[in-house]
C-alpha cells in the first residue's frame, strides 16, 4: 500500500533528474507518467480486501501510531486515491503529448499527486495538513507556470487565501491536540465519543468549524470559492483539468471523513444549504461569463455545490450519490477542460464569441467536447444523467432541492452557449493565425477515452453506484433509482426546453446587460477574508 505513495515520489525524483540533464528529458517525462500509472495496478489489487471491509494500516518507518505517520486504507481512501490516479494519468498523458511542458513541470505535477495520495491515505490530522501544503505549493508553481501576469496574480491570490485557510486548519488541530491529546483521526473520534460527542464539548465546536473552514477553502464552496475562477482559468490547460477534476474532490473527501468520523452531524443541514446555494449562484455567474475557461471554472464550483448538497442530505444513499457525482464530475470536467484547452491553444483566443468553427478542424476533440457537455447537462445516457437521478432520489423531500433543479437547466443553457465554439461550421469563416499545431494523436486519444468513460459510467450508472456503495459501506445498495425508464427519460424534455429558453433570455438585451454586471462582480480580497471569519463563526455557531 505504501507504494501508492512512493511510486509518484520516485517518479518525481526521475523528473527532477531529467530537468537537470538535458539528454534524459524525454525519458524522464515518460518514466514519471508510468510512475503515476503504477498506483492504478496497486489499487486494483487492493479492491477485494477493501470491499470486504478490511482496513489496511501501514506505519511509515516502523514507528507505531501515536508518534509515527500511519497510513490507513479504507473504502473512502480507496475511492479518493483511485479518483486521483484516474485523472492524474489522463492529465500526464495529455501534457506529455502537447510537448510544451518540460521535466520540471512533471516534477511539480507528480508532487501534487503525492500530496493528494497523502491526503487520501493519511490517518492523522497533522500529516493531512502537511500533505495539503505539499499540494498547495505545487499548485502555486503550476498555476503561475506560463509566467503571464494573470497567472501570477491568480497564483498569489490563491496563495493568500489558502494559506489563511490552512492556518485556520492548523488552529483547529491545535485545539484538538490541546483538549484531547491525540491527533490520529480514529483516536480523536474515540476520545470525542468518550467525552460525550462534539455537541457536549464547546471547544470542539470551534475546532471542527476551523477544520471545516480550512478544508472548505480548498474545496471552494461559497463563501470560500473566490480563488477558484482565476486559479482554474489562468492555469495551463492540463493543470486546470487536474485541479477541477481531482484536487477539489480530494479535499471534499477529506472533509467528509472528518465530519463523519468526528460526529459533526449537526453540520449536515448547513452544508446542504451551502451546497444548494453554491450550485445556483455559481451557475448564474457561469452563464454570464465570456471567457471560456472562466465559464468552466464557475461550473466546477456549481457542480461541487451539488456534491456538497447531497452529502448534506445525510442518508447512505445520499453519500453514495455524492461520491458518484464526484467521480462523474471528475471525468466530464477534466474532459471539458482538456478539449476547451485544446481549442484555446489552437486559436490563441479565449473569448467565447471569437472562437468558432472548430468542429471541422478537430472532429474527435469536438465530439468528445459534446459528450462532456451532454454529461454535465444531465442528458441520458451520459453519466451526468445517472448521478443527477441518484441526487434527486437522495435529496427527496428536502427544501434545498428546488435550487438544484433550477441549477440543472441553467447548466444546460450555459453549455448551449459554450457549444457554439465547437460547431462544425462558422458564420464568418475566420482564419486563425495558427499559434500551435492541432492536438496530437495522444491528446486526441486521451479525450476520446475520457469521453467513452463518460458514456460507460452513464450506461452502467446503477452498477457504478452499487460498487461505490459497497466500497463505502461494505453492503449492497438496496434502493436505487431506475435510470432508463420511459417516465424518467420524459422528465428531461421540459429541462431541455427550459434550458433553451434560459439561453435565449441571456442573449436578449436586458440579459446581456445583466450578465455584464454579474461578470464585473469581483469581491476584493479584503471582503473575501472577512467572509472567511464570518463563515468560521457560522460553522461554530450552528452547534447551538
Amino acid at each position, binding site marked *: 500500500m505504501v507504494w501508492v505513495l512512493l511510486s509518484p515520489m520516485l517518479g518525481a525524483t526521475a523528473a527532477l533528474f531529467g530537468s537537470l540533464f538535458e539528454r534524459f528529458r524525454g525519458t524522464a517525462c515518460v518514466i514519471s507518467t508510468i510512475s503515476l500509472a503504477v498506483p492504478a495496478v496497486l489499487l486494483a489489487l487492493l479492491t477485494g480486501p477493501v470491499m470486504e471491509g478490511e482496513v489496511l494500516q501501514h506505519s511509515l518507518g516502523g514507528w507505531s501510531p501515536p*508518534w509515527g505517520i500511519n497510513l490507513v486504507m479504507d473504502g473512502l481512501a480507496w475511492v479518493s486515491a483511485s479518483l486521483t490516479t484516474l485523472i492524474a494519468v489522463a492529465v500526464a498523458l495529455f501534457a506529455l503529448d502537447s510537448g510544451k511542458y518540460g521535466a520540471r513541470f512533471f516534477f511539480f505535477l507528480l508532487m501534487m499527486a503525492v500530496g493528494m495520495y497523502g491526503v487520501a491515505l493519511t490517518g492523522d490530522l*497533522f500529516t493531512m*495538513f*502537511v500533505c495539503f*501544503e505539499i499540494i*498547495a*505549493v505545487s499548485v*502555486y*508553481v503550476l498555476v*503561475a507556470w506560463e*509566467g503571464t*501576469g*494573470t497567472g*501570477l*496574480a*491568480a*497564483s*498569489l*491570490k490563491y*496563495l*493568500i487565501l489558502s*494559506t*489563511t485557510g490552512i*492556518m485556520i486548519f*492548523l*488552529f483547529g488541530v*491545535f485545539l484538538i*491536540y*490541546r483538549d484531547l491529546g491525540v491527533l490520529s483521526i480514529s483516536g480523536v473520534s474515540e476520545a470525542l465519543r468518550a467525552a460525550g460527542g462534539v455537541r457536549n464539548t464547546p471547544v470542539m465546536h470551534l475546532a471542527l468549524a476551523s477544520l471545516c473552514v480550512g478544508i472548505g477553502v480548498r474545496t471552494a464552496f461559497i463563501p470560500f470559492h473566490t480563488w477558484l475562477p*482565476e486559479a482554474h482559468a*489562468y492555469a495551463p490547460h492540463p493543470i486546470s483539468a487536474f485541479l477541477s477534476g481531482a484536487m477539489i474532490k480530494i479535499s471534499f473527501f477529506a472533509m467528509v471523513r472528518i465530519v463523519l468520523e468526528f460526529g459533526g452531524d449537526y453540520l449536515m443541514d448547513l452544508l446542504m444549504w451551502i451546497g444548494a446555494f453554491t450550485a445556483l449562484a455559481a451557475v448564474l455567474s457561469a452563464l454570464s461569463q*465570456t471567457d471560456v475557461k472562466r465559464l468552466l471554472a464557475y461550473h466546477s464550483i456549481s457542480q461541487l455545490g451539488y456534491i456538497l448538497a447531497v452529502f448534506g442530505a445525510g442518508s447512505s444513499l445520499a453519500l453514495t450519490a455524492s461520491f458518484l457525482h464526484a467521480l462523474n464530475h471528475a471525468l466530464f470536467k477534466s474532459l471539458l477542460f482538456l478539449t476547451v484547452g485544446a481549442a484555446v491553444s489552437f486559436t490563441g483566443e479565449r473569448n467565447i464569441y471569437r472562437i468558432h468553427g472548430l468542429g471541422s478542424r478537430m472532429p474527435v476533440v469536438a465530439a468528445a467536447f459534446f459528450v462532456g457537455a451532454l454529461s454535465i447537462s444531465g442528458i441520458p445516457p451520459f453519466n451526468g444523467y445517472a448521478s443527477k437521478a441518484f441526487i434527486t432520489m437522495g435529496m427527496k423531500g428536502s427544501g434545498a432541492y428546488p435550487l438544484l433543479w433550477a441549477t440543472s437547466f441553467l447548466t444546460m443553457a450555459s453549455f448551449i452557449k459554450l457549444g457554439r465554439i465547437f460547431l462544425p461550421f462558422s458564420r464568418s469563416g475566420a482564419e486563425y493565425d495558427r499559434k500551435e499545431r492541432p492536438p496530437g494523436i495522444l491528446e486526441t486519444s486521451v479525450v476520446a477515452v475520457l469521453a467513452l468513460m463518460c458514456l460507460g459510467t452513464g450506461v452502467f450508472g446503477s452498477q457504478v453506484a452499487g460498487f461505490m456503495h459497497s466500497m463505502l459501506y461494505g453492503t449492497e445498495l438496496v434502493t436505487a433509482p431506475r435510470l432508463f425508464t420511459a417516465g424518467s427519460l420524459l422528465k428531461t424534455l421540459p429541462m431541455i426546453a427550459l434550458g433553451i429558453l434560459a439561453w435565449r433570455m441571456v442573449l436578449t438585451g436586458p440579459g446581456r446587460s445583466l450578465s*455584464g454586471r454579474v*461578470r*464585473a462582480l*469581483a469581491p*476584493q*480580497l*479584503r471582503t473575501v*477574508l*472577512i467572509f472567511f*471569519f464570518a463563515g468560521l463563526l457560522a460553522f461554530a455557531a450552528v452547534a447551538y
Partner: protein
Amino acid sequence: MTWILIGAILMAGLWGVVNRPNMIKKVMALSIANSAVILMFVYHGSLSGDTAPIEGNGGTMVDPLPQALMLTAIVVGVCVMSMALVLVYRLHRKYGTLDMREVEGKAWKLRD
C-alpha cells in the same frame, strides 16, 4: 498573560492580511499570523514539563510531540513564504506596483 499575547500576535497578523493593500506586507502579515499558531503549539507543549526532552536528563520532560510537529510546520511556512515573495517580485516586474487592488484590476479585465 502569554495566551493573550499570542492572541494579539494572531490578531495583528490577520488584521494585516485583511487591511494592507501592499502585497509584501500582506505576505509578512500572513507569516506573523502563522507564527502565532506555531507559538500556541510550542507554548502549550512547554507547560507539560520543565526540562528539554533529551534522553537521560532527569526531571519531568516536556511533551516532545508539539515541538516536532512545529518544526515541520515552520519548514512548510518558509516554503510558502518564499514562494509568495517570488510571486510578488514577478508581479512587481510585470505591473510596476505592489498594490494588490491595482494588480487585480489590471490582471483580469472583467469589464469589456
